[in-house]
């Protein structure tokens, strides 16, 4: 197998977010590099490392870079990526030592030198963050980080990334009255650099050569200059780029929270962070989780009004995506046992959507393996209806009055419940008529109560992998249509609704694992979660209940 083949395999696995395959291909490449006299061509090495970095496979990136160096591919870029991986894995002291060894080697290459100095700045910035300001050395770390960034920026003011990092750290030093070598007015210096950085990005923008990162940089510069409205506009430009992914947006979010100390409770964070959060929610590939209560705080009426006014009609819509998610979340409940331990999730539906006789009555849908009156449902054992408590929040807890209809776990794994009490101010979750394309590009979203904890949104790698629905599905049983997706779920998510990208429910989540048998008669297994198509549940219910 050639190095190009390894690169191709790794790229395919990265694009598919197939983590086990990425790790396996990287191990194979490592073994090849360690036993080959032929150095890996630099463009291939560069492509592999960039791909691993982009998808945040830092462990694999470190090991591949190490093997490349052993293999004789010692281009400064490989060494720098190795240091990058060390930083991202939290091996900060080692990274700093390695970068200091590397620095003299890149002296004659100004671009590489700027990169190495930037990484040193980043390593010290991270040391400062990790110290949480609790140790005497924190101020020293802050000063070192600023010095490294400034060393690059002072030489060439087109290095706006270094400039904006220096700005953020100088502003932080100013807020915390940290004494720095070389400046006694860090806030003023931060503002001066921010103004220059903003001017540089604006000129790039006018010339049509600004990159996505430039927009994020301009947003930070506006924060430093206290120009919140412009910061929101640049931030929206940044998140709107189609090539930006959740990892990059997550990294920007960390910078805003950890260095700029923004929060959703106060300006300007309550305006800027929701723009990033809503973009994150719409992107796949992120390991982030949102706590519903945090999202609710960020979506106050005041924030919504401000954002709409600043961003205008066509820019505000990505934020509305998050708002819609919050509305759906209100109809999702935790199901608890007699000891008040959360064991599953359920969601409100309009009864008439499942059997006409229920009309507009709000009913709760969950898995039969969560609530059932069938004594043979034992693995795992289901709660009997009278043992279950249904909680939409501390002030909205219901008992189950009646189990109306159920289908066992080995068929549709569903129970339709009538709750004891009147449910007010909650809209039922609407059901999609059709399934999304099974082209690997569609995303699904799960809202549930993983690990019995608070309501949360999981957005890690949320691709719809396959389904057995029309027109091309080949289900073993025509009345049981399954979906496979990679949205992560943990115990407690059973009974969660599976949403399409328009926040219409398409499925009822019920199972998952690393080796789920593939659908549609395909051989083999894959890591996936499984849900049942709500339209097949609806058809079965409508047939049974008259």
């Amino acid at each position, binding site marked *: 197998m050639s190095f190009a083949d390894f690169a191709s395999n790794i790229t395919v696995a990265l694009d598919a977010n197939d983590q086990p395959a990425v790790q396996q291909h990287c191990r194979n490449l490592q073994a090849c590099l360690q036993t080959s006299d032929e150095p890996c061509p630099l463009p291939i090495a560069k492509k592999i490392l960039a791909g691993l970095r982009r998808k945040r496979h830092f462990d694999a990136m470190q090991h591949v870079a190490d093997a490349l160096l052993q293999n004789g591919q010692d281009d400064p870029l490989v060494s720098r990526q190795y240091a990058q991986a060390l930083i991202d894995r939290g091996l900060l002291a080692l990274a700093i030592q390695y970068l200091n060894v590397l620095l003299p080697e890149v002296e004659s290459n100004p671009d590489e030198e700027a990169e190495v100095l930037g990484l040193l700045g980043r390593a010290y910035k991270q040391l400062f963050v990790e110290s949480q300001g609790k140790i005497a050395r924190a101020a020293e770390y802050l000063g070192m980080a600023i010095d490294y960034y400034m060393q690059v920026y002072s030489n060439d003011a087109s290095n706006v990334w270094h400039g904006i990092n220096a700005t953020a750290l100088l502003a932080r030093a100013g807020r915390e009255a940290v004494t720095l070598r070389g400046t006694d007015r860090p806030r003023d210096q931060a503002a001066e650099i921010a103004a220059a950085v903003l001017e540089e990005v604006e000129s790039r923008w006018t010339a049509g050569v600004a990159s996505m990162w430039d927009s994020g940089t301009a947003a930070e510069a506006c924060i430093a200059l206290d120009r919140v409205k412009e910061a929101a506009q640049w931030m929206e430009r940044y998140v709107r*780029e*189609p090539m930006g992914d959740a990892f990059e947006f997550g990294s920007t979010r960390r910078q805003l929270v950890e260095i700029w100390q923004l929060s959703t409770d106060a300006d300007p964070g309550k305006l800027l962070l929701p723009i990033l959060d809503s973009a994150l929610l719409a992107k796949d590939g992120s390991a982030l989780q949102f706590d519903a209560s945090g999202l609710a705080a960020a979506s106050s009426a005041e924030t919504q009004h401000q954002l709409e006014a600043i961003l205008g009609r*066509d820019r505000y*819509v990505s934020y509305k995506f998050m708002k819609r998610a919050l509305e759906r979340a209100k109809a999702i409940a935790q199901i608890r046992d007699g000891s008040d331990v959360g064991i599953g999730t359920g969601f409100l539906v309009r009864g008439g959507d499942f059997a006409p006789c229920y009309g507009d009555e709000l009913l709760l849908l969950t898995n039969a393996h969560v609530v059932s009156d069938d004594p043979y449902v034992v693995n795992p054992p289901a709660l009997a209806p009278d043992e279950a408590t249904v909680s939409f929040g501390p002030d909205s807890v219901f008992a189950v009055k009646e189990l109306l209809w159920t289908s066992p776990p080995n068929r549709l794994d569903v129970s339709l419940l009538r709750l004891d009490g009147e449910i007010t101010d909650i809209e039922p979750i609407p059901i999609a008529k*059709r399934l999304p*394309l099974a082209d690997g590009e*569609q995303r699904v979203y799960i809202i549930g109560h993983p690990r019995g904890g608070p309501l949360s949104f999981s957005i890690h790698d949320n691709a719809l992998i396959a389904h057995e629905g029309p027109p091309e599905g080949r289900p073993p049983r025509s009345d049981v249509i399954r979906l496979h997706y990679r949205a992560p779920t943990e115990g407690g998510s059973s009974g969660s609704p599976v949403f399409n*990208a328009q926040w*219409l429910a398409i499925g009822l989540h019920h199972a998952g694992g690393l080796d789920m048998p593939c659908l549609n008669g395909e051989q083999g297994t894959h890591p996936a979660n499984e849900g049942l198509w709500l339209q097949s549940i609806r058809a079965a219910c409508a047939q049974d209940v008259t």
Partner: protein
Amino acid sequence: MPHVTFIHGIANKPAPDVLIRLWRDSLARDEGIDLGAEGVTSDMVYWADVLYGEPKREMAEHESNDSIVEARDEEPDMTWRDELESDELLWVDGLASKMNFDAPPPGGDETFTPEAFGDSELEANFERIPLPWWLKRRLMKMLLRDVHHYLFNVEYQAHPDRPAVRVQDEIRQRMISALAQGAAKPGPHVVISHSMGTVIAYDCLKRVPDCPRVDALMTIGSPLGLDEVQDKLQPGWSREDGFPSTTLKDSWVNVFDRLDVVAAFDPEIANDYRKRGDKVIDDLNEQNWGTWRHNISNYLAGAELRGKLQQMLEL
């Protein structure tokens, strides 16, 4: 399962995968029609590389506001006009004259921008469209060049590493291939075209023998109302029976904004493409917004456009 074939308009574009994502996203935004989520397949007839060497950078902002507005340093090369002769020269000069292409700006000021005015006063009048003169001129350069090269089937080499091709032959072949793929799906099959893409879609449906059938056509921000364009769509086009009846099964919806500089010359086309004498095209005046009224992203966000498309796709 419904299928959509998109075809883009004038000026350079981002790479094909980015461009189709931008179109799909624009259609889905603000609780619109998410084709993938609705189980609708879609494809893009990409032809920017026939006339442009390299795709534009992946800047969503530039596509949505259009690079024409943002990048003042990208003036199209118009030296090709110097080599034209006889009828071709007359045709180009005639269209350039209609577009006010060669007219100096009022007062010699390239930044001259007419005052905006209320819709009630609005007539199709190029001078009154509130865009800076230089911007209108740049757009007209692109329109003139792209339309000319297509309609006159110019041999053109967009990039030194790629062979020269006949522009119309190459783009037609791509369009027909995409239409054949769409026709192989269960349907309905809808073509959504923008700007110069509307001319290409019409040309193929009406004038290419054995063109696959489609169920519905949507033209957006179209220059099909221009007499000069219609003249070059002959044989095939006639005012009384210009509707492509043999290849277009159902409806044709034409969407425009009167302040869209490309469509503004004659935005309503039902009268120009009749079906055996009857006006059957649904001309839809949907207000776009912002400075750049030719913007496809804004068009695809239109509520009426989306309503029509939902009907076409039978969603």
